[in-house]
């Protein structure tokens, strides 16, 4: 893999930009204006501590970071660096010990479970490493799941477009167990895109895939950012995967250690080698 920022493929149909910009979507429980104006999400002095006394572990040790709207950002770091914890806290899946995280202009700490649920459904998309899909629902139903949960049908034209782009054809009526790993991840990306969220969080989305299939998924994510103006934050430890991003944030021992803009795989590998 050596194509850093692959250009849009000619074979795919042109896609319209999202019907409504993330920022103009009506907020659900806007509490106060967030500090990072213009940022899709971010954290301020985020700390997360496990255990007590001598056994205390600082998974996050004062992380302040923001993620620009319409950009593809990768978070890199070795195992145990706190990169996944950061992502979970940013996404409202996990809570901080102190500090704050925000999505758009909403502080997550101020939300109760109901509001957080609403936020996840309408403003956040998720792509996990594995187990992204409900095994009992078909691919098509999985893509529409967030809208179905909200009792909405969503933007039909947009969903059709996303579904077409996934390129599963008649396999859309199949259950996840009948799809390959790559096909399953494409469905997961489509689901994240379908509700036109303000931001998509991806946790090692290609970690379980072979390099060719992984490249397909990353390509797909890249295009979602470049062509539809989607915002994506992705945790990865793969330099090649990270090189698809517009910007890389490096995390180590619960802190932000460095940043890189418009990376290539070689630059990333060099950076990691120096770091070690």
């Amino acid at each position, binding site marked *: 893999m050596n194509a850093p920022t692959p250009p849009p493929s000619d074979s795919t149909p042109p896609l319209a930009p999202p019907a409504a910009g993330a920022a103009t979507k009506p907020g659900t429980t806007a509490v106060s204006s967030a500090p990072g104006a213009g940022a899709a999400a971010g954290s301020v002095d985020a700390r997360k501590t496990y255990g007590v006394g001598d056994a205390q572990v600082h998974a996050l040790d004062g992380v302040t970071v923001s993620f620009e709207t319409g950009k593809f950002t990768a978070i890199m770091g070795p195992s145990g660096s706190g990169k996944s914890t950061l992502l979970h806290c940013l996404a409202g*899946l996990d809570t901080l010990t102190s500090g704050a995280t925000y999505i758009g202009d909403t502080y997550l700490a101020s939300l109760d479970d109901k509001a957080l649920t609403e936020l996840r459904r309408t403003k956040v998309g998720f792509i996990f490493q594995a187990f992204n899909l409900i*095994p*009992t629902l078909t691919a098509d139903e999985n893509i529409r799941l967030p809208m179905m949960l909200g*009792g909405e049908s969503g933007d039909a034209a947009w969903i059709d477009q996303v579904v077409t782009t996934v390129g599963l054809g008649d396999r859309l009526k199949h259950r996840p167990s009948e799809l390959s790993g790559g096909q399953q991840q494409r469905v997961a990306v489509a689901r994240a895109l379908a509700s036109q969220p303000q931001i998509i969080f991806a946790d090692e989305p290609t970690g379980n895939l072979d390099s060719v299939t992984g490249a397909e998924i990353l390509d797909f994510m890249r295009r979602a950012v470049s062509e539809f103006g989607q915002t994506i934050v992705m945790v990865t430890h793969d330099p090649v995967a990270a090189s698809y991003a517009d910007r890389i944030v490096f995390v180590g021992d619960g802190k932000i250690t460095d940043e890189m803009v418009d990376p290539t795989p070689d630059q990333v590998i060099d950076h990691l080698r120096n770091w070690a």
Partner: protein
Amino acid sequence: MSAGSTALIARKSIRARWGRTLAIGLAITAGVSFVVGSFVLADSLRATFNQLFEELGQDVDLEVRGAQEFDTDDARDPIDVAIADDVAAVEGVAIVEPTLQRYAQLIGDDGDVITPAGGPTLGVSWLGDDGIQGVTIKEGTPPVGPDQLAIDKATADTENLDVGDTIAYLTDVGTFEGTITATVGLGSGDSFGGAQLVALDLDTALVHFGANGMVDAIDIALVDDAEQASVQRAIAEILPPRTEVVTGEQVAEETADQVNEFVNVFGTGLLIFAFITAFVSAFIINNVFQITIGQRLRELALLRAVGASAKQVRRMITFEAFALGVIATVAGIAGGVLVARGLIFAFDAAGAGFPDTTTVLAARTIVMAALVGVGITMLSVIVPARKAGRIPPVAALRPEVGFAAMRARRIVAGVVLTLAGGALFMVGLFVRPGGTVGLIALAGGGALVLFLGVASVSSTIARPVTRVIGWPIEKLFKMPGALARENVARAPRRTSSSAAALMVGVALVSATAVFASSLRSSLVDTLESAITADYIVTDQSFQGLSPVVSETLAEVPELEAVTPVRAISGQVEGDTKNFGAVDAVSFEKLVDPDLKAGSIADLGLDELLVHVDPASDLDLEVGSTVDVLYQNGVTGTLTVAGIYGDATFGNWLIGLDTLENVSTAPARDFFVIGKLGEGVDPADGDAAVFAAMEPYPQANVQTNAEFLASQEAQINQLLIIITLLLAFAIAIAILGISITLALGVFERTREIGLLRAVGMNKRQTRRSVRWEAVIVSMFGALIGIVLGTFLGVVLSLAVPDDVISTLAFNPMIIGLILIAAVIAGLFAALYPSYKASNMNVLEAIATE
């Protein structure tokens, strides 16, 4: 919020997990089937008998019979057959048919009597073609004269008897022979409720059955344009005293009421066990839901992550349960109808001789089925659904977080439930607020709460107890045994929940066992000390023994004392009492009634022996007098001659002469007791007594030891019947262990794959799963035995001392239960162990 999406996901989930759905569904269906079956059976029997009696009574407009002063279960006094002629002369009367029912039994070619499977042997009179009492001809012509008889078609069929055959029959007054001229039935049925029937014409019946010109009743049909009420009045005017004329409708209703009373008791009994079965299924359903929520943890967390609210997740799980409950209930209703039909068929095959039964599925039955089926499912899912709602979204990525969130503090609640249940149970039994209803509600409800509590608390001791149970298994089976032991011990909560259903079943069996053993040993103690007689002769004809039996016995020289025991109902201060009548001089030698005051042998005419309880209730002492109104309207005054403490022969005893003075009915004996003379060799005595009783097959002679054994056997039978009724619940409990284990195997797919990869063979795999099942079922059985013994002891203590005076335990039953638990475990493991050993090793390891 969208109800549509919740329903969709729930529906898909049910469809995608057929095995599990089927298992839960089966548990619900079984419980509902039993409940529905009990209702349908009782309703159908009631409807059938009501219809039958209505049909039988449709030709009878009026009936003349002996009057009773108050309602008793006693037979009515017979009436003079001559009344029939007077009644026939009344204007408006078309047909009179005197009816008569006495003892008669067919004798086979081998000279032995033919005994029906379970019914009585009856001799009846029959008017033939003009008869209106419901006897219908199946084949042939009615018997006329002393050399002809008709028999019921059911007996004819089973004994290969045909019209034209000659057969002998035995009655109270001798043996007769006749030609079968007809086979008959009752209405449309071939049988008379399982009875063996000999029908003779009236004149022959009066002689051959030894009726002395007396009949039971006179059935009357009126001419077409007669007015029932005015004919009834006209007949009433010519009747002698202590006879009455009532409408056919009233007779049909009274007969139906008697049968309904029996059907109600029977139906209620079945229903209790049906509810126990449903209760046990609730444990299984709850456990399976609990486990599957754990298995679907990541899926549920993923739903939360993509925007499902906790409420939606809860609703989804609840909806799944609801849909399942509804489907299983519908299946259960169908199953229940089949169960009821099957039981009726089985009773019929056993000789009950039911007429063609209709199947009655009442609206009430369907409502109850829905309450039980959907109700237990919804109750079972409350806690699992709440747990599902607590799963945080992040569990989609870190399942361990989800399991931590689902863990609930059950111990405190369990201890509270256990103590509250135990307290309710004891208050219900000992304090009995609100009488019988309070007793049943509190004791029954308390036991249920206690079961829930113990099921919950038992998880705390599951680990040490199962380790002990597993020790010999590990010693015996090495590695597979050790794995089985570890697997049971590592999830104590699951072990205790899957054993809980079996625990309930075993507890009920053990409680019954303790109760029955105590009852048996108390009864034996009482009988041993009370009955000093050497021979007890009981009646097998359901008609009472003819006095000829006791007279014959009294003439046996080897016997020193013989007395029959007769009875009559009488009212004392408005309450109906049963008076036993004996020959006092003999009675004193035959029975030790624990005399407190007065004497037995001196019991004279119009004197009375009374038990201490009614004596103290009514302030009676030796010399007091009691006014009695007998059921036939005769009154008398009895003087207390003695007071005794043993109630084996009832609370009120009079002399035979007193009874003869007041009774207007022919004497029938319930039983006869006799004692060998001083120095007579028991072997000689036995020979003499059995020889003397040879001509009376309806009289069953037992020695004292045989009698005690037969009484014990009856109590054992009770224990067996209750165990059989609990078998359904226990079968469901075993199914529950099987499901839990299968789910456990599924969860450990990867682990089992790994073990197989490093060299465990199929046989060892099967073995480890099998012994895991045995340890779980042994655990359930042990807890059940402990709890059941406690319940049985409390129950026995709550029963009055004159019924249960000593506690007794039966180690053999406990041993049997434990052996049965091992077998149950092996049985439950059949499918899971097969599943575990037939995994594809590579696929298993690749499973996440």
